[in-house]
């Protein structure tokens, strides 16, 4: 078939199609695709242009353009005519059950959300908030916190070293020292932040995590206040019925020291949630506070641990994978 013949054939087919449109056996969209679509009949004809010798191309192109414009015009007219005749749904029957236009909203990371919630709770009892560096010197991470150079307690801290005197902080306790170096007591501070441990990565451990440290220094701060504060927080965070126990432990920078477990009904076991204690007099001395005058307590909560308990997350690695299937659960 020559191109001319084909053009005529398409023209004829189009006419038939328009008829069937009017008697409703074809939709407007069907016809648009059949003739004007990217793989439609008109495009098919244009594709044949490249088969023609160069001398015939201009005239053939002109013909095809005319065809397209002509058919398009007919199509538009018919469509207009149709629209004026097709029945529109009555106002009463517009389908409000169709979904609304979606609006995407992002999500706050559970670590951020948990830290914010913790800050809010402690701010109600007068804790201010301070921050400190993630890379710090030996003095602030260890020495001033009463870790003598060869003390076995340093075994408990699986530390990343940058050089012999510089570490990725192993706890937010370094902020305690920075604060006390720069301020006179009394103090009541919360210190959230990221900390690092040189630990093999597993569902339980990651090479970094977040802590919320607390420090309260005044003349008459006691172990009773420490317990009161920790329980106050636990009840706000986990509900009035939270079951907790304080057991003796050891940290170089507190004495007496305690670890606090809360009862996990689901796992039927105690889960450690915070390490705490009364600030060791040596720490006060290292920052120039007189331990005969000042007393205080400090605590360090693991943020991931709290988020894991609260949301029942069973793998700590999920926090750092940026998997939107995880993130979008925290709306």
């Amino acid at each position, binding site marked *: 078939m020559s191109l001319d013949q084909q053009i005529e054939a398409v023209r004829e087919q189009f006419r038939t199609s328009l008829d069937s449109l009017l008697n409703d056996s074809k939709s407007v969209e069907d016809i648009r695709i059949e003739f004007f679509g990217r793989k439609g009949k008109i495009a098919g004809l244009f594709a044949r242009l490249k088969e023609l010798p160069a001398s015939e191309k201009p005239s053939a192109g002109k013909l095809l353009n005319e065809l397209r414009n002509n058919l398009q015009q007919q199509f538009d007219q018919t469509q207009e005519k149709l629209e004026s005749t097709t029945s529109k749904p009555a106002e009463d029957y517009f389908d409000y059950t169709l979904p609304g236009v979606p609006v995407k909203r992002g999500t*706050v990371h559970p670590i951020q959300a948990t830290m914010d919630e913790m800050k809010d709770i402690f701010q109600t009892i007068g804790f201010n908030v301070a921050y400190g560096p*993630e890379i710090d010197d030996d003095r602030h991470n260890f020495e001033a916190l009463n870790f003598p150079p060869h003390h076995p307690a340093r075994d408990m801290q699986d530390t*990343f070293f940058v*050089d012999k005197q510089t570490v990725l902080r192993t706890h937010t306790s370094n902020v305690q020292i920075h604060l006390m170096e720069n301020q006179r007591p*009394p103090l009541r501070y919360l210190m959230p932040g990221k900390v690092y441990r040189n630990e093999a990565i597993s569902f339980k451990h990651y090479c970094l995590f977040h802590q919320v440290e607390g420090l309260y220094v005044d003349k008459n701060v006691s*172990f009773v206040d420490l317990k009161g504060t920790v329980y106050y927080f636990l009840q706000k965070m986990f509900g009035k019925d939270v079951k907790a126990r304080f057991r003796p432990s050891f940290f170089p920078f507190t004495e*007496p020291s305690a670890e606090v477990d809360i009862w996990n009904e689901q796992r039927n076991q105690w889960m450690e949630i915070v390490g705490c204690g009364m600030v060791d007099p040596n720490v006060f001395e290292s920052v120039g506070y007189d331990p005969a005058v000042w007393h205080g307590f400090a605590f360090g909560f693991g943020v991931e641990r709290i988020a894991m308990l609260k949301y029942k997350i069973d793998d700590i690695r999920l926090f750092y994978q940026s998997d939107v299937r995880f993130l979008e659960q925290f709306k």
Partner: protein
Amino acid sequence: MIVAIDWLKDFVEIKETPQELADMLTMLGMEAEAVTAAETVENVVTARVSEVNPHPNADRLKLCLVDDGSATHQVICGAPNVYAGQISLLARVGAKLPGGQKIKKARLRGSESFGMLCSERELQLSDSHEGLLDLPSDTALGLDANELFPQPLAAIEFEITPNRPDCLSHYGIAREIALKTGRELQPLSLRRGKENANDVEDFVDIIIDDSEGCPRYIAGIVENIKVGPSPDWMVQRLEAAGQRSINNIVDISNYVLLELGHPNHIFDYRHVPTKKVVIRRAGKGETITTLDDIERKLDDQHLLITDGEQPIAIAGIMGGELSGVTDDTTTVLIESAYFDPVRIRKGSKSLGLMTEASRRFERGADPQATEDAFWRVVNLLEELAGGQAVPGMIDAYPRKVAMPLITLRKSEIDLIAGCEITSDRIATYLSGLGIEWQQSQSDEWLCTPPSFRPDLEREIDLIEEIIRVYGYDNVPVIPNYSGVYDQSPQDTLKPLTHIVNIMVGLGFNQCYSNSLQSADVAGSLGQIPVELMNPLSEEMSHMRTDLLTGLLKADEFNRNNGHPNNRLFEIGQVFTQTQPGFKGIVEEKRMAGLISGTVGTQHFHDSEPAKQSFFHLKGYLEALFNNLDISGVIFKPNSETAQFSHGFDISLQEEELGSLGIINPDYLKKIGLEETGALIGFEINADRLLDIYTQTLEQRRYQRITVFPAVARDINLVLDDNIMVEQVSELVENISGNLLKKIAPMDIFRHKSLGSGKKSITFRVEFQSSERTLTDDDIAKMMDKIIAEAENKLGAELRT
């Protein structure tokens, strides 16, 4: 530390179940990690199958007569390997098997069975359920199964904090139980030999060259020992405590270590031919092959035990291979010493060798326990290895270890505890802790801690002990807050919450990426990253210098998990090493964002969602700054960036805040990520953003609402392609000053009729005065001026 409960009973009465004991000790500071309950077997004995007859009603069952030495029982058995004359184990009626199963008289298919013949699995000896346990034919009948197959003892594994070396022993744990329960602690009764005997001095001479490293060294000789297996009770206890039995001599050494917590060492006397033991500093580069057959290279911080010529042990850490006990050893030299904790710790650390002995020495062993441990080893060598002690004990004690004298005030206890603990209780606790005390005045005690508590040095250490024994759970819970503290600054990151919320509102998911990266990734932007000395792996050896790399990785992860359309952001610290050393590390808070794929997913109202583009990200950023009320942020091209193929600086009043751009596919390849469709990212200095936002908040003032109407005009300019919209806006701003309310481009049109390299842009300009209604004339004048200047300065042409 694993403690066998049966072993504790040598020293203190135990009434609690293993779980109760574990809980009690946990609340005393010894955290129980695992409790192994004892498996008990009762009424199971060896017996001979005397007859095997078919069961009248079941093909697979046999009717057996079984003789346990005192009676014959009819027992029904289904095991295929049962035969007459077989000796096996019979669980008699009333027997208790491991796991709690009880054996009763049973009726099986019409016949009665009085007991059960056992397989290995039923006794938890192995998983084998193949058939009956087949014992040698000469096994005596009626023997209790417990004698043949001792069941594991109940044990508790504790995590002992490093301040409590005294609890790394059964005796130490028993002492804590006695202290808490008020029960009596029964020390070992030891035979200490005659007091003035000195025969041993003919055998060995002790020379301490380094008394700082070795304040005390006790030695003695036991002859005629016979190396052989240890008795079952010892094997069982050692196994319960996690120690494999080797032979009686090695076992005795380990047993005393676990019992009293004091390490000791047993040398084969043949390997001390010089008849002397010299304790000295190792020389640099000196070597010794230790018991585990590894040659260890030493330096001068190590303490060596030598025979005056050859090293025979690394003091407090591990014995030498050559001097160890072998099957033909007959005479042994016993060492029970006290070594300096710091020296042992340094030595153990530099060798990377931690042993049961070094663990105790480095935490602080008991210098007084050396003697008890010595006699305990000697006594056991006599009892269990047939040895005879050479009379006497050499006690070289050049440097006495003194305990401090501490004043303990009740007033301070009350202050720290915050609750009343009576003086009587305090005195009782002090005694129970082994602390010698005198009441110096009412409510004040002069205390000397026992030598096994090197951690008790100060008053606060004693206060901690008092509260610990009193019970942390007995301290009341009273939240008590008063007083307003004038603390500044207030939470400097408070405004960050608002920024996070804006980003979330714009559809971004907040991420927390790993701050540790490979050298390649961390160095991909040309900055020097902070490097770790001891990384977990090469993939995590450096600190990140930017946040976008983390988000790019996150986007790839999500794309590979079926989520190609992402909006991600992160706020966190980045680090650069600007000069060597700690002071050269610069830590900065950043915020980064990344968009990929399409703006949304296809849905009913939008069949073709737009692809994320540069202008989308620019729009998000403009929305962010707008929400923060920060105006005047500009974006200008920046050619110097590896990360972006089209990069732009984000700046405010000449200050560079960060950058944004289209991620360069080559950069993705460089950091090991797959190429993909357009990714557009930004990264800005969050510290600065917070400062600027905080200032903005402080400077925020109310603007009076203008009552005069605004007038809008459209103006259509034909411009050269290289003229940017911003140039026109600036020109209009300059002319209109504070009468300009807003100018915005509405449409760009290109057509050959305009001429090549030309475009026509329609701007909508709105004018408003806060003082009067603008007249047509005002507007016309201003428009004329705008058009004239646009023609002059920008070569524009008015299109009508």
